[in-house]
Every structure is written in structure tokens, then in C-alpha cells.
């Protein structure tokens, strides 16, 4: 039993994020729960505004002003972060848990050199000397595929391309050898060719260093390649979760099915043929949200969907939040 618990690096239980807006409270994340095991990659997928980013920021306690989080439990390596003070959070952040952001162009401080920003966390958490930290930085810059790393340390962010900056961000996140890495759409802002490189790099590093990774993306192609497990978010809730193969092979929730149908498949999608489209728009999350939030766009919707849908679990670990007991 204890070995099983040690296996789980992150256990999120009943996490909600509310944002105060002019029109009322926006329920950006609504009572979600999931676990990430050591060395595992979990992908959080969903459309823009479904609460993926808010979930990751809530775990790191980095929510913007006006957003508040609630959780029954937010356990990192068995320790409940939802009750930890700012000092304890600061001791874990950048050391045991690290994060990479969507926008490499603005995520680095323009006023300081790459080297200065790389060594910061290592010197703070490891009480290392400047020389030790720089050595570690050079080692990691090499690992993320940056040539002549020693010279790069003296450069400023504006002297680097977007792809290089994201590599620097990855190296920065890995400085202290974290147990958990949260990557919030790390390739969205990059060129398509660079996207593939960065994703492969992340997947390789994750495997080599045995880090648990939460990868947030809206790109199902990425998910299929690197995720161990997938959680599909819709309107602030996890509507389906399970092992990657099971979820892609046998999607149970109509929304997951719709998402997968939107991906063009070579050989199956006819040239000039139409891709799948999910009709309608995401409902507003301001004020009270009742029942299944997908029902307005769902082909299987019926009266019972106006009540909160039940959560079903299959033996293979797949779970879904729908009145349908079997595949849609």
C-alpha cells in the first residue's frame, strides 16, 4: 500500500478555480480530480478556455490576481499543498516541481542574461556557488541541444530565437532535477518544424530523467505520441480520462469522440472530404452551471442530461462523465 502511494507524485482531488469577473463568478475549473505517477506523462487536452492552463497554474500556486482555488486535497509527494504556506510552496517551486510556459518570447526577463536566469533557482535551492551553478547550466543547455552553451550564458533573451528560448526555459526548469514538470502548451507559439523538435526533446528528457510530466495541449497528434495517460477537459471539467491507447481506441464520451474525428488521418480522410466538426459553442461558465455542459452540442443528448451526469469506470482505468454507459 505505501509503495503504491509513493508511486503517486501528484494527486489532485476536487480542485476548483473561480475567477471574479464583472458579470459574476466564472467557474474556470470545476471540481476536477486526477493523479500523476512518478515518471509518467499525463496530457491534459481540450479547447481554449476549457481550464487546462488554470489547472496547471493552480497546482503551482501561480494563479493570476482575481482567480482563487479550492481543493479537497492537492498532494505533491504526499504533502498537501492546499494547506502549505507561501514559504513551503517557494521551497518546492523551481526545486521539486517546475513549469514551462506557452510564450517563450515573454517568459524570460529581458533585463538579465540567460546565465543569470538559469543559475538563480539552483543557487537558491541547492545553496550552490556561482561556478557550480554555471557548470550545471552549461551541462543542461547542452542537454537541451544548445550549441556553444558557454557563450549563450552571456547572451540576453532578445538575442535568441523563439525555439532557443523555449529550450532555455526547459533547461531552466530542469536545473534542480524536479520530480514533476508542468508544460503549458510549450510549443503553441513556435514554428511547426520547431514544435516537433521541442516535443521530441521534452519526451526524451522525461524518459531519460524519469520525471513525471503534465503536458497541456490542444493537439491530439502530440498526445497520441507522447502521453501515457490522457485527461480530456471540457468547460472546466474532466469529461474522460484513461490510458492513451484505450482512450484513442475506444473513446466513451461523445466529446472525446468528436475531438478525435476532427483529426485528419492519412489514408482514411478523403482528399477534399470534410473533417469532423463539433457543432455549437462552449457554454458560458459564469454563474451556476448545471447538468452536463456538453449537452447543447451533443448528438446523444436527452432530458436526463440536465442533471449532473454520473462517472463510469472501466476495468482498464478509463473513466468518463456521461449518461452513456458504453461507447458513443
Amino acid at each position, binding site marked *: 500500500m505505501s509503495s503504491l502511494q509513493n508511486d503517486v507524485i501528484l494527486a489532485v482531488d476536487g480542485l476548483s478555480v473561480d475567477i471574479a469577473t464583472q458579470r459574476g463568478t466564472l467557474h474556470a475549473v470545476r471540481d476536477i480530480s486526477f493523479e500523476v505517477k512518478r515518471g509518467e506523462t499525463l496530457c491534459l487536452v481540450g479547447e481554449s478556455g476549457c481550464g487546462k492552463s488554470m489547472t496547471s497554474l493552480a497546482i*503551482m500556486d*501561480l494563479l*493570476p*490576481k482575481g482567480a482563487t482555488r479550492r481543493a479537497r486535497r492537492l498532494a505533491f509527494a504526499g504533502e498537501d499543498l492546499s494547506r502549505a504556506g*507561501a514559504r513551503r*510552496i*517557494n*521551497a*518546492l*517551486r*523551481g*526545486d521539486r516541481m*517546475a*513549469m514551462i*510556459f506557452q*510564450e517563450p518570447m*515573454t*517568459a*524570460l*526577463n*529581458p*533585463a*538579465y542574461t540567460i546565465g543569470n536566469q538559469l543559475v*538563480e*533557482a539552483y543557487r*537558491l*535551492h541547492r545553496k550552490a556557488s556561482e561556478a557550480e551553478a554555471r557548470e550545471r547550466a552549461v551541462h543542461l543547455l547542452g542537454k537541451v541541444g544548445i550549441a556553444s552553451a558557454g557563450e549563450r550564458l552571456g547572451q*540576453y533573451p*532578445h538575442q535568441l530565437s523563439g525555439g532557443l528560448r523555449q529550450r532555455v*526555459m526547459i533547461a*531552466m526548469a530542469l536545473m534542480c532535477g524536479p520530480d514533476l514538470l508542468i508544460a503549458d502548451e510549450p510549443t503553441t507559439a513556435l514554428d511547426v518544424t520547431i514544435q516537433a523538435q521541442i516535443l521530441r526533446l521534452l519526451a526524451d528528457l522525461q524518459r531519460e530523467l524519469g520525471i513525471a510530466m503534465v503536458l497541456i495541449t490542444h493537439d491530439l497528434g502530440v498526445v497520441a505520441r507522447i502521453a501515457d495517460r490522457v485527461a480530456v477537459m471540457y468547460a472546466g471539467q474532466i469529461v474522460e480520462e484513461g490510458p492513451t491507447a484505450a482512450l484513442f481506441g475506444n473513446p466513451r464520451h461523445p466529446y472525446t469522440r468528436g475531438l478525435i474525428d476532427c483529426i485528419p488521418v492519412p489514408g482514411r480522410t478523403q482528399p477534399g472530404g470534410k473533417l469532423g466538426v463539433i457543432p455549437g459553442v462552449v457554454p458560458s461558465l459564469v454563474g451556476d452551471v448545471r447538468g452536463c455542459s456538453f449537452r447543447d452540442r451533443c448528438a446523444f443528448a436527452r432530458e436526463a442530461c440536465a442533471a449532473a451526469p454520473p462517472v463510469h469506470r472501466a476495468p482498464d482505468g478509463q473513466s468518463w462523465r456521461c449518461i452513456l454507459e458504453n461507447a458513443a
Partner: protein
Amino acid sequence: MIGYVLKRLGLALLVALAVSAIAFFLLRLSGDAATAIAGEGARQEDIELIRKTYGLDRPLVVQYVEWLWQTLRGDFGTSLYFKTPVSALVLDKLPTTIVLGLTSLGFALLVSIPLGVLAAVYANSWIDRLALAIAVVGQALPNFFFALILVMFFSITLRWLPVSGSDSWAHFVMPTIALGYYVAPAFMRLVRAGMIEVLSADYIRTARAKGLPARSVIFKHALRNALVPVVALTAVQLGFLLGGSVVVETIFALDGLGYLAYQSITYKDFPVMQVVVLLLSVLYVLLTLLADVANAWLDPRIRVA
């Protein structure tokens, strides 16, 4: 970085030259030098004689080139009112004004930067409102009036500080506060606005994600970026300081350049006026140059330009 500094230095020299020309021609337009030299009740022949002797009948451009040449060689002429060389006069007064300028700028920054940071970090709290009140009062109060309040309080009621003169450091305390408080509000508002903007930047979130403590996030990562526009404002505010020092120096009988400027205008003392205007503008150009260099150091992206 050195190339950048040299480029700015060249530009600064050109600006100083242009300013010297404008100052020369403007002053000549403001009144007749020969009449001023001759004094009241002089006869027309005397004025004509003076015009010939001093070479004032030649074209203005020739006079300007000659004046510039003499000035560059260090010959500033003789004061018509004090009857002493202008260079000695100016050198005598300059240190007082420089000291007052630096102390009041220092005072302004010392007050406005911490206050601006506090106001931004605790935006819309009572601290923010208090800082705003201090700024509004500073902006609304004429500095001669504020200077008089200071005199009433510290010299007459408490008897802590001397009313006037420039013999000891104690003579500089009230002028420094009066002049510093005059320019502080603009700094404070700018620091506050800059900090509020910078604190919501992505790289601040990155810094927090590293687990850095709040003071490091605020003072290392945020403040440096928020200070870039402040440094640019410093140059502009120094201009205000030089202007304000005319009033403040006069009130406290602080014998500096500002007071000399006031006197030379009153007595139509052309040689002194010209040199004071030139000196103040060169000072201003130099300070702007310093601000540019400091900005380049703060924000590496500027160095390329």
C-alpha cells in the same frame, strides 16, 4: 556598449552647439547689448561708440563665431554688473547648484522609488492611497510656498535649521526638501505605473515559478524593468530642478547658479546671461547623455540601436 556611448556623445556635442547658437541669437533679440552697456541716460553717440568698440555693429553670425571661439578657449568675458570675469563668477556659484541638484534628486528618488513600489505591490490599498495623497499635494503645492512652510516650521518654530545662506550642510536641508518634493511626484507615479505593468508580465510568473522569494521577484526581476522609463524621466526632471533652483535658491539666499541667472536677467548682464544659459543647457545635455547610457545598461535591448 562603448560604440553606443561614443555615438550618443557625438550627438550630445551637436545638440550643445545648436543650443549655444540659439541661446546667443535669442539673447541678442531680447534687447540691445550696447544700450545695456552704456547704461541709463546715455547719449546716442556714446551708444554708437560702444557698439563699434565691442564689435556689436558687425553681422550677428560673425559675432557668434567670435564669441563661440572665445568661449571654447575659456574666455567668457567680463560681467557688466559685477565687473569681474564671468568664468570666476560662474565657477564660484556652480558647486552650490550642482550640490543642490544632486541632493534634491537623491531625495526625490529616495522617497519616490520605495513609495512607488509599495503603492504598486499593494495597489488600491490604503498604502496606495496615502502615496497618491503625498504625490497630489507635492504636485499641487507651489515650491516657493512649500519652502516658506518649511522655514516657518523648522527655522522659526523648531529652530533646528538656519533660514538662509550656504555655509554648511544644514543650509542645504530645506532647499533639498523643497526642490526634491517638487519633482518626486512624477517619479512616484511613474514607478507605480511601471511596477504594476511589470508585475503582471510573464517573466514575473517565471521568477515566481522558480520559487524565488517575493523580495527577489519585486526588486530583482520587476524593479529593474520598471526603472527604464524612470531613468529617462530623470533627465527631464533635472531640467525642472535647474529651473526650480532659481526660485528655491532665491528664497533661501543660496548663492548658486540659479540665483546668478536671476540677477543677470534683472541687470541685463548679457555676458553672464549667455554663459549661464550655455552652461545650464550643456549640463542638461550631459545629464540626458548619462540617462541614455544608464538606460542602455538597464535594458540591453536598447544597446543595439
